[in-house]
């Protein structure tokens, strides 16, 4: 009996060891490429809202005061910050990158992930003319950003008040988070 258990364990161990060895080799071969891909993706998402020649550095911030903010990344060019935040939209969470320059004005927003209703809220992230026009409204806005019906200058997307409000509020939060950095 004891002998049998030992044999089973040995076989399993052998197969696991071989698998682990192969995985180690594959990991070593792909590690650099994967890290490079991740960096390129982040840079392309960030440079869409705040261009930087020399990359970005993450800076610490007060996570308790700004629970929706995921990270604040300072441009190594010194022209501002990119704030990523995750907040709830109409159907689920929205993840967004927002560029903020040194004068605390928004330099652009880019929605990285969302689950909004196709044709309504999803327009906020789409590459269609309507979506681009919606996002362009955010460029140059300050901490007092608001929808038209709340006294601001951002026109809400037709039929997607919740999404529009959420994105607008998140932009205001991003600007406030950068302002709080001092």
């Amino acid at each position, binding site marked *: 009996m004891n002998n049998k258990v030992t044999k089973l364990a040995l*076989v399993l161990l052998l197969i696991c060891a071989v698998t682990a060895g192969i995985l180690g080799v594959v990991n070593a071969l*792909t590690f650099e490429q994967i890290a490079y891909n991740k960096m390129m993706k982040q840079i392309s998402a960030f440079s869409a809202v705040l261009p930087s020649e020399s990359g970005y550095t993450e800076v610490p911030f007060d996570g308790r005061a700004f629970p929706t903010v995921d990270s604040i990344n300072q441009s190594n060019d010194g022209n501002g910050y990119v704030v990523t935040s995750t907040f709830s939209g109409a159907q689920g969470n929205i993840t967004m990158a927002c560029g903020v320059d040194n004068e605390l004005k928004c330099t652009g927003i880019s929605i990285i992930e969302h689950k909004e209703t*196709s044709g309504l809220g999803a327009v906020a992230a789409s590459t269609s003319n309507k979506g681009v026009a919606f996002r362009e409204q955010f460029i140059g806005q300050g901490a007092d950003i608001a929808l038209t019906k709340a006294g601001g200058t951002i026109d809400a997307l037709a039929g997607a008040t919740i999404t529009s409000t959420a994105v607008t509020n998140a932009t205001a939060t991003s600007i406030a988070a950068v302002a709080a950095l001092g």
Partner: protein
Amino acid sequence: MNRKQQFREGLITNNPVLVQQIGMCATMAITTTLFNGIGMGLSVLIILTCCNVVVAALRKIIPEEIRLAIFVVVIAGFVTIVDLLLQAFIPALSESLGVFIPLIVVNCIIIGRAEAFCQKNTVKDSFFDGIFQGLGYTCVLIIMCVFRELVGSGRFGGGLIDITNGFRFTLDGTGGGIQIFPADYGMGIMNLPFGGFLTLGLLIGLMQYALKKGEKKKKLEERAAKEAAAMKEVEE
């Protein structure tokens, strides 16, 4: 073993999705663009073939008691390899398939074939079983993708085909596809999980209908042959 028979089984009479009804989770979730469907289908095909070969090769030394544990280790190993390779060389595909590549580890198709086929068959047979079952899976994914994409967004080959500057294939998932009618007229619900359920349900129904019809025909033919044989006997 008859290759033709194996081919028929994998693609039609014992199709993993439509007849065995296994591996349906990813089938419903990712069949929104042709790019996703072909990527997922080929990933499963490669992993399935590799696992089949390894399991068949080791079938004499795998102890009965811990076979499932060993299958899972082998499958998880291959899935991780494919996952890493995709992340490194086709990041767009890895991103759009997301968690569904790692989830192939628990995809019933692979462990099902290991348990039901490769344990008892030669490496060569298992290799072809992997190819044909994988092809069967890929075909179903492609049919679902084409249907859902066409009905849902009026498009063909999203992510895979780009026609802005002449026809070309895009492996980075940026192709806009061929717009057959404006996306506004598409039934958006087909792009949601509901569309996956509906399409898969209709496909399974159609498949069973066709199989039943084929069986009936076969039975009739058999009966006719028997009767003819009986007539012959009587005549003799």
